[in-house]
Structures are given as C-alpha cells and as structure tokens.
C-alpha cells in the first residue's frame, strides 16, 4: 500500500479518482489549491486506488496522506 501525500499545506479543490480506479504513475489523484495556484497531487506509483482520505473543501497539512494506492 503506497500513500499519496499532499506536497504542501492547502485546500482540496476536487478529487479526480474514485476507489477502485486504476491509475498510472504521475496521474492526478486530487487537485489542491495553495499559494494562489492549483496543485495537482499525483500518483507516486501505478496501481489501484484503495482509499481516499479527504473531501473537496478539506484543509490538508503538508505530507498528509490523501489517498492510498495498492
């Protein structure tokens, strides 16, 4: 199980995948907003989304786990 982590503090704008989706490395998992910019949070590995731990509008800390990939 590989965690997908937020690169920096920010707000979750939207979630691009759902549990069970097959994702490739570098695919966008969620989009955050921070520093006046939209920040794509990408899959560190190729795999299947096991869990999504955040919802749109949530504030997340730097390095917070936002999703898990198997």
């Amino acid at each position: 199980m590989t965690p997908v982590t937020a690169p920096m503090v920010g707000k979750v704008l939207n979630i691009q995948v759902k549990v069970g989706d097959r994702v490739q490395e570098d695919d966008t998992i969620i989009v955050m907003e921070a520093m006046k910019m939209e920040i794509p949070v990408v899959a560190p590995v190729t795999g299947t989304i096991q869990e999504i731990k955040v919802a749109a509008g949530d504030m997340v800390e730097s390095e917070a786990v936002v999703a898990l990939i198997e």
Partner: protein
Amino acid sequence: MLAETPSTDFGMAERKKPTDGVVTGYGKIDGRTVYVFGQDFTVIAGTVGAAHAEKIAYCIETARKIGVPVIGLYDSAGARIQEGLDVTRAIGKIFFQNSITSGTVPQISAIMGPCIGVAAYSPALTDFIIMVKGTSQMFITGPSVIREVTGEEVSMEELGGAKIHSEISGVADLVTSNDEECLQHIRKLLAYIPSSAFQVPPRVVSTDDPNRRIEDMENLVPEDPKKPYDVRRVIRRLADNDEFFELKPKWARNLVTGFGRLHGHSVGFIANQPLFLAGSLDVDCSDKASRFIRFCDAFSIPIITLVDVPGYLPGTKQERAGIIRHGAKMLYAYSEASVPKITLYLRKGYGGAKQAMCTREMGADQLFVWPGVELAVMGAAGAVGVLYKREIEQAANPEEMRRQKLEEFSERFSGPFEAVAKQYAHNAVRPEETRVRLIQALEMLTTKQEDRPRKKHGLMPV
C-alpha cells in the same frame, strides 16, 4: 603509473598489485583534452591506499595546471584501513586538490560503484555528480556502523543509492540506467562547458533558426494564473532544437536548472516550476539554484532566468530549516555573477521571491516581461485584504467591496506597462518573439565586462 602500495601490514604484501586500484591519464573527448582517473574494483576492491590517493590528487593537480576538465570514475570499497594514517593523509590531499581546483577547471564525478566513507567527500567537492541506478552508493557511515550506533537497519541502497541522492538529499545531479549511459552523459555535459575558467564555452553551429518565431508559445503558459504548467516545455521551445539538459531533475522540482543553447551559444536556464509547490521558493531549491548560478558564473555561461513565482513557501518547517540563510544564497549568487544575465517574466512575480529570481537590482542586464505579467509586492487577494481591511469590514456588502477592490488592484498592477514605465523591466516582449529577443540580447551581451570590489573572497551564506 604502475604505483603500488608500500604497505606490508595485515597481509597486504600478498594482495598488492600494480596501479594500486586506480588508473589515471589523459585523452580526448570531442577533440578536447581531459584528464581522467578511474578506480578499479578488481584491484584490492578499488580501496583507496596512499599510493592510490596520491595518483588521484596528482591527476587533479595536473588537469588544473594544464587547464582541462578532470573526470573521476568512482568505484571503491572505501579507505584501505590496512594502511592506517597514511591513507587518511593521502585522501586529504585529494580533498585539497578538489577544493583549490574548484572554479578553475570543471570537475565531473561519475559514481559507478560504491563511493563510501570519507572518500564520498571527493565527489562532493566537484561540480557535478552522476550516479548509476542500482550499482552506485554514496554514504559517510555505512549500514553496519549505523546498526551499531543507532540500532537502525538500513540497506546500502536505501541509505545512499541513486534514488536517495537524486530525489531526497540533492547530492546527485543526474542518474543514468547503466555505465555506458553515464559516460555518454559526461560527454553531453562537457559539450556545454568550457575546458577552464579562462576559456569561453564551446559554441556549436546551430541548425535552428535564430529568427524562429514560436507561434504556440502563448498556449504553453495558461492565462489563468491559478493553472499550473510544465515550464520545461517553455524552455525546450526556446532552446535550439528543443534540447534542454536538465540537472537535478527530481530534486527541488519547484525550480528547474539546466543547460541549453541559443543560436549555438551555451546558456544556463533557471526557472520556477509551477507544477511543484506552485513554483514557490524553498530551502532546497535555493541550494539548487545558487549552486547552478555559481557554476555558470565561474565558467562564463550566460544565465537565462524564467520567472513565475508566487512567493516563498510559508510554514514553520521552512523557517526552522533556515529559509532565511538558504534563500539568501540566491540573492548572493545572482549578485555575485558577472556573466550576462537575462530575466524573463512569464506570468507573475510577487514580493521578495522575485528579487531572488534576478531582477534588475540583482544585476539582470536585460529584463523582459510578457504582456500578461503581474508584478506586485504581494498577490492581489492578500494585498487587498491588508490595504482595504477597514473598508471591507465596514462595507454594507463586504464581499462585493472585496471583489471591487480586487478588480481595481489587479487592473492597476497587471500588464507590462507599470513594469516598463518604472524601469523594473527593459522591455515587454511578445511570447512568440521571445526566442528571437533572447538571442539578440545574448549576442549584444557577449562583450559584457563587470568588475566587483577587490577582496580576498566574499562570504556566501551557507
């Protein structure tokens, strides 16, 4: 040199072989003389004995005297402890030669096997480190010492493999998948840099039109300032034949550094990367940028800076990691650099972070802005919140008031006019004409001379 270890202690008399585990010499790459030393793991595991270290130190010293690059191929089990103090003394000679040679001739290190213990400091003192995936490791204290002292279990690869040094520690500039590719990368790198600080970088005959307009350039950078994009695509489109030789591509990815060519002239590109951390500046990218700026300056390579920066990355983590002293390195390095410096604003520059990206005050010889640029002391939303705090709070409709002030503010500070009128920028350029204008400016600047106050040396923040 067929030197061999003078030691006979601990059974070394039976193990000693000619060369003492390292081969040194000179040859040519693309017709240019280079000095090379290569450690040989098949001879006493490439361990660094006194004779071995003397040969390396002499090789570096000779390259400096002749004024040619020196390339080190590292593959060694570490210091040869059987030789005792003689080894540490001889390794010290390598460090001394690496250090005093720094900035005179390029020093390139290829890590093609283990490079461990105190020996790892030799490549660290050179200009570039290339590691080979899966077969190279660099660390100061090995897994067995770590286990003994801290109880931590870690493999050599997890401790100091290519992935660690290219993504986390920032020690390695490049990673290649095998030894051949590693050697090819050294050749590629050398093509961009001169043989010594007293020569100019090799210029190639470019097959790419210096008057090439880039009609789709505008599409590479989204108009909406919230939308990220890959600044490396902008760099590739600007450079001759779309070629960009990126350094440290997977470390401090919020800032991009690397070499390219403009009309055959070698240039160093530095750019904010909105794809990572919104392109903000942090501790690691300040290190990455300032080291690259200093290399370019030492070896007469003009610097092209592409700016789209929202500010410094906020947070206790950055402040405690010393963003003040690390961020200062960029200001220092840009100010110190006397090579031609051209800065281009792609979209926005806010606050102090834009000073760190080579403004005119930091010595940019030519500063261009694209038409849609926004330059301000801080982002519009933040500025409006501070400047009109009371008006917004007391308004009948605070949200409406905020929106109105935001619009006024953006209108006032967006676009190139204020920047040019107030001499922040030399000129506005159209995205499609950027390559043409960069080449004109670069060629105009070829004869640039700029002195600095006389001193022994400055004290770069470290």
